């Protein structure tokens, strides 16, 4: 009999505790936003500091599925609150496919760069393709593109240990943004350094097809390509196109690994380059909150200091570079605008 009472008392205590828990937690509700995210921003999303700010100040939590910037436009959007691709083109693509989104906001920028190894950048310096100014490497895109079009082999430029011909590996330009941006850059270079318009596409497309045709299988995510670049050595990926943010994030997150790799690993700014614009597209009303949360001053600061994204407040770099990354340009000045959506669409179709 006694134990029966004890059980009942225990039950009442548990119920009371649950009631209190319920009251407390209901004041702190967090809406989970689900959407598609470009792989290069996963680090930011998984950042607990960022997550805390989003939860405390904006009562939201991001959940995501990784998808290429262009892929996400055509992927199944049932139950998704947002898309977070890495280019303005994606937004225009979205508008073309689905009409105007509820809201869209440019959240960060990062320039397209080439990642390579010391061995390769030294050889390219000897060829006059790469030059160094104030500790920053720049690649003459006209010369580099010509080399790719000529089918120059690595052996021709003094690197017999590398098999095949000079190329920059990219993600699939028809599916993922960094590849797409690099295609846009090459298109402009092939167009005599002028931004490609609808009328120019037919003229530059054969050259683009030749360059991308050489690459064979292309990854669909920038983060996968970058980690393969890091993991598989100079032989597998002599040069890749990526975002400037990637190396900063890597160095901040893996200081010891960066320390070991930094003598070999180089970042080269194409001259000219293009900006990758990370634009947040809200698909639902709940999703709209995501934009203001990402523009939070604190989030923007963390975006630069931990993940390497240049934000409106951090366009010109002052002071030390996060992660102690060397070779980061204080300011990216030689930038060419990306072709408009309809020219880009023709380029994408031509490369499909």
């Amino acid at each position, binding site marked *: 009999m006694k134990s029966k009472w004890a059980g009942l008392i225990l039950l009442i205590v548990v119920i009371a505790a649950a009631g209190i828990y319920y009251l407390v937690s*209901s004041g702190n509700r967090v809406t989970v936003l689900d959407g598609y995210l470009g792989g290069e921003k996963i680090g930011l999303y998984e950042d607990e500091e960022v997550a805390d700010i989003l939860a405390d100040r904006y009562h939201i939590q991001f959940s995501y599925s990784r998808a290429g910037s262009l892929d996400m436009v055509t992927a199944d959007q049932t139950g998704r609150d947002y898309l977070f691709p890495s280019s303005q083109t994606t937004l225009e693509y979205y508008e073309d496919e689905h009409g105007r989104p509820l809201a869209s906001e440019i959240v960060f920028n990062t320039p397209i760069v080439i990642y390579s190894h010391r061995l390769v950048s030294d050889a390219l310096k000897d060829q006059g393709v790469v030059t160094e100014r104030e500790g920053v490497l720049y690649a003459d895109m006209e010369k580099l593109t010509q080399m790719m079009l000529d089918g120059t082999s690595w052996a021709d430029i003094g690197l017999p240990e590398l098999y095949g*011909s000079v190329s920059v590996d990219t993600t699939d330009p028809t599916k993922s943004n960094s590849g797409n941006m690099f295609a846009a850059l090459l298109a402009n270079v092939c167009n005599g350094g002028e931004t490609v318009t609808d009328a120019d596409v037919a003229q530059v497309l054969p050259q683009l097809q030749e360059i991308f045709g050489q690459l064979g299988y292309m990854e669909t995510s920038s983060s996968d390509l970058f980690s393969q670049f890091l993991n*598989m050595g100079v032989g597998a990926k002599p040069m890749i196109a990526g975002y400037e943010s990637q190396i900063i994030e890597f160095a901040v997150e893996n200081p010891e690994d960066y320390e070991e790799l930094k003598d070999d690993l180089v970042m080269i700014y194409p001259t000219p380059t293009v900006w990758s614009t990370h634009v947040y597209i809200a698909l639902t009303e709940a999703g709209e909150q995501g934009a203001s949360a990402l523009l939070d001053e604190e989030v923007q600061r963390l975006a630069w200091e931990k993940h390497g994204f240049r934000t409106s407040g951090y366009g010109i770099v002052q002071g030390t570079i996060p992660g102690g990354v060397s070779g980061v340009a204080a300011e990216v000045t030689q930038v060419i605008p990306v072709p408009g959506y309809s020219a880009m669409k023709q380029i994408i179709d031509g490369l499909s």
Partner: protein
Amino acid sequence: MTLYYRFLVLKKRCRDCAPRCLMWGIRRLSVLLLAVMTCLVLGACSGGEENTGGDSYFAGSSGGETLRIVSGSENQELEHILEDCARETGVNIEITYLGSVDIMRTLEQGAENYDVVWPASSIWISLGDSSHLVKHAQSVSTTPVVFGIRQSLADELGFVGREVSVKDILSAIEEGKMSFCMTSATQSNSGASAYIGFLYALMGKQEAMTEADLQDETLKGEITELLSGIDRSSGSSDWLKEMFLNGDYDAMVNYECLIISANRDLEEQGRETLYTVYPYDGLSLADSPFAYVDHGDGNKEEAFLEVQDYLLSDEAQNEIQRTGRRSSSLGVSEENRDVFRQDWGIDVDRVLSPIPMPAADVLMEALNLYQTQFKKPSLTVYCLDFSGSMSGEGNEQMVEAMAQILIQENAERNLLQASENEVNIVIPFDDDVIDVWTAPDSSPESLEALYNEIQDEVCAGGTDIYRAAREGILQMTSGYDLDQYTPAVILLTDGMSNGDMDYDDFQEFYREEGVDVPVFSIMFGDAEEEQLEELAALSNARVFDGREDLIGAFRSVKGYN
């Protein structure tokens, strides 16, 4: 997990009517809590699921999450590390081995039964992840696909201490100086990578293989010739290594780490070790990505990250290097260089410059051509058990099995379709050979006719698997040039042999014939495994269970032939 989920739903429902709902909510909560308490008392939902399947299981803690991993068989060598990992992290690990190309197919179909994919190379994830389920992919180690050639043969061929091309290897094969073992390109990464390397080398191209290139008649002749140099095949790399060790072959295409592992065994057995050749015009690199398949269970994701962190920790990475794998990005540490022995031709200082994989559609077309045209045609004798003990369920399962492989509509769905020149023979047996049915060709009609014969046969009498298997081998040796085919006898039986012939008689016959024909078994009914295992051991084959996963069993067998 479901309880946690209900909590959330409950909160959501109450959001709009907080005060009025509160009492109701508490009532509901108390019911839930009671349920929780009952569970705790009864121990009925102690958290972790039971070990429901998989090839291996490592217990972490009884209340811990269970991660179901589907992995390339090459990782079988890392089981001791996974065992430590389970103990350290408290996460239970269940692992199933499949070829990487099969892992891609699993992923395409949603990989519902798995939380983690661990193929040999990233490409199979990117190709298979059409529904964007995969997250947190991280390379655990890297290892190149290489040729391991008997040391004395490598010396003789002049392959030691110099750069060797795929063409050099092709000449050795053409001149009849060398044959080799390789995994099936349509199932396993090492086979697929090597095959693509062969194609590039034969095309004389360094990049950008196109579909038009694949249609070239000269190429077709050359690649068929090259693949005719394959002695034996298998569905996954570690199985290939095991088969290699159990037999007597010249060479194998496999991962550097498995050549190292094979050499350790060979050395221990006092046998000749393999010399490692890195063909510079057809090299590929496996990066072993360990990746999470998101089915929306946050606890699993956390468990996954714990396990991944463990595998990437310095301690585990050191252990992984000791198995002959290179650490991603940092390579091989000074103290582990002794594992990568130079006298075996292993070269860790070499810049590994792999060939690019072709674009997805070209790659798929290349694999399709491998299956249907380029690979050595298979010569298969199916010995079907029609003894009394098979009648009923056993017979039904067996006939259904044959429908899956002989009716081409079914076969195609599982990439088991017949190739151009393959030969199919069916031998129904009881305590004697009942008949021998040979399909005149591999057309869908001929194979269906074969199936109809099988369907009409009735079960009666005793069982003699040995007599049937012997007849199978005699059919092969009397009618075919075995060098031109990948031969296999496949016994579909419950394996309770009680006829005139016994294992010793068969062993004597098999040794006298002196042919390398594997006798695989697929078990049905109340199968008795022992007799079948004996046959498999004798002929360097394997036994599969047709009752659990028939298609899996067939795909495995076909990987070998």
